């Protein structure tokens, strides 16, 4: 099944078979990072730009290594060191970069839809590396990849996603992906951060973490930002920890072999206890490792071959 997309803007518009193609390609790329020479020559002479308007270490480095392991040149552009601070518009920034004949733009931006907007005026491939609270497709892909590596399947798994669902692009992309591939997703968090309308995405909602954890195969914890407490989404961090932090006692309610995931960075002792974060059930570092393979697969499938240019 070929992957006929020019851009990767989100999971929501992808078909289950396109997602499966991406996940399967990830398998082929996983091995390359374990070699002595962690590099293949396929994208020699290609130029990829990391265009990050928000701070990020994990995602940016992961894309950078993925691009380098495919032998592409990569340019790191972050808003702190660019003319954006001088007030250059996103459009002008992108057009100037394109004038340097780049092939692919990887965009992280605080505004939802910013990568979509960029595709309306640029020729390059665009990959969404996180846009506002909207989507973070490669994170969802690497999460699904990790679940598949551990559980050998996604269908009928109970995946509990806990935390600030409202503001989380990771949650959205995961909801879209996991429901498309037949997992049972349960969203957990304070009602102010888990709007009821999310049920329309084909998930269940529970405000009680203990109850939701029963028979869970996968527990995905999200980072909780203190900014939310300041805006009264919940009364205090203490209360949040009491209700929604994952600790060993709570973890025992899930299935014996339940795995724990977190997109990072973790607030140790807040959403996730340190002993669990460092336990054998924690997939956190595996997620990071798989991130590179998945991003290599995404770059390969978007930039490879001529077919998309004809279709587009």
């Amino acid at each position, binding site marked *: 099944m070929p992957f006929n997309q020019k851009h990767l803007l989100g999971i929501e518009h992808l078909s289950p078979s396109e997602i499966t193609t991406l996940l399967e390609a990830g398998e082929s790329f996983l091995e390359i990072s374990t070699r002595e020479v962690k590099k293949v020559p396929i994208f020699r002479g290609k130029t990829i730009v990391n265009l990050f308007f928000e701070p990020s270490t994990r995602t940016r480095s992961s894309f950078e290594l993925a691009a380098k392991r495919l032998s592409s040149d990569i340019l790191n552009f972050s808003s702190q060191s660019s003319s954006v601070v001088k007030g250059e*518009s996103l*459009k002008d920034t992108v057009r100037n970069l394109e004038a340097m004949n780049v092939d692919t733009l990887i965009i992280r931006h*605080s505004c939802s839809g910013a990568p979509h907007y960029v595709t309306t005026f640029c020729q390059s491939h665009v990959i969404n590396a996180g846009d506002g609270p909207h989507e973070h497709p490669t994170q969802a892909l690497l999460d699904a990849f990790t679940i598949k590596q551990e559980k050998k399947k996604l269908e009928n798994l109970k995946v509990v996603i806990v935390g600030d669902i409202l503001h989380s692009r990771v949650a959205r992309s995961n909801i879209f992906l996991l429901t498309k591939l037949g997992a049972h997703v349960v969203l957990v968090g304070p009602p102010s951060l888990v709007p009821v309308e999310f049920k329309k995405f084909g998930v269940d909602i529970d405000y009680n973490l203990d109850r939701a954890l029963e028979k869970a195969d996968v527990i995905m914890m999200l980072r909780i930002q203190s900014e939310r407490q300041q805006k009264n989404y919940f009364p205090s961090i203490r209360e949040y920890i009491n209700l929604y932090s994952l600790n060993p006692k709570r973890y025992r309610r899930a299935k014996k072999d339940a795995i724990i995931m977190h997109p990072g960075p973790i607030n140790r002792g807040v959403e996730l206890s340190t002993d669990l974060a460092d336990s054998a059930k924690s997939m956190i570092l595996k997620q990071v490792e798989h991130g590179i393979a998945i991003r290599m697969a995404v770059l390969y499938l978007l930039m490879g071959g001529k077919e998309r240019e004809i279709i587009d």
Partner: protein
Amino acid sequence: MKLLIKNGRVIDPASRTDETLDILIDRGKITEVKDKIEDKDARVLEASRLVVAPGFIDMHTHLREPGQEYKETIKTGSRAAAKGGFTSIACMPNTQPVNDNRGTTEYILSQAKKSAVTNIFPIAAVSKEQKGKILTDMADIAEGGAVAFSDDGNPVANSQIMRRALEYSKIVDTPVIDHCEDKQLSEDGMMHEGYYSYLFGLKGIPSTSEEVMVSRNLSLARKAETPIHLAHISTKGSVEFIQQAKEKKIPVTAEVTPHHLFLTDASLKTYDPNLKVNPPLRSEEDVQSLMEGVKKGILDVFATDHAPHAFDEKDTEFDLAPFGINGLETAVSLILDRLVKKNLISISRFVQMISTTPASIFKLENKGNISPGADADLTILNLHKEITVDVNQFESKSRNSPFHGWKLRGAPVITIVGGKIVYSLQKH
């Protein structure tokens, strides 16, 4: 110079007229309306197969002058109005400086006299600098020519100030208009809060942010026994509140815009900043309720909320774009195509909501009707004219319309202000 409009289908809800009549105009006034007028001195305008209506009045526009002439001026805004079939437009006070004093009101009127092709009616601020703290000198400003008072986009948050404004407006006998929004509930939202805002990851503006203020305003108007006009109503809950208020004879009128009637939040999947507007495009359910409100007479007025913005301001990330839709040149055709053509409302009801009722809210006795002695402001429509909206043909300085490319049936073809033809479509 006399003007004789012959054989038009005259629609005048004020006199419950819907028949083929001739209209004679002399020195800016309508002098005669009857079957078969002959006048050798008059220039004859043949209007058979056309609808002749009292000039349309837009209660809600933003002309940006003074202060933001790069977006729109009184001249370009009035030309856009004339092309869109409006003979009078009322402009909101959020200019720079804010129209919160008689001097600015008079400045706008003097600019209008110099450059406008339509009537311009300034709406002055309720509070100084629209800050919601100190009332403006309403009597003085009304004498200077303001037809209404509103803090529009910075609505009066303090209920005590709003109560005082409503009470005080009895002196001037001009209505207070409120943009109903609780800014705390809207926070930094930018589209309707609901399924689609969660899907697109855009921060939501809940329906309640409008509804709590509609409810508050209705309570205050009931207590003060003063008319209040509610701008651009957008939610089902608001329509229900207004319906109940009208049943209790609370003196309220309410307007609705074409974009709230013909677009929904689902359309934002393109992240097109031209769809960013406040109040936001609501859900399908809200749209259905607004339609019912129009049909049942709960909503009284069609207004455009014409909000021009420069191209670059809207050519950006959705979050960063300003709110507002360019409305003067599309409103009439949209309503004719989507409501009148489909027989959802009659042509008379349409004219009532866009001319008769606005004139009566603003207490413009010589406007909004076609009878001898009235101002010769007329809008002539061709209900069968097919048009394609093309923002590049706009008279407005700005192009921020989400309706670009829409094919519509029914259009204003001649606009007459004070007996003078200010706009005429080549082939009508």
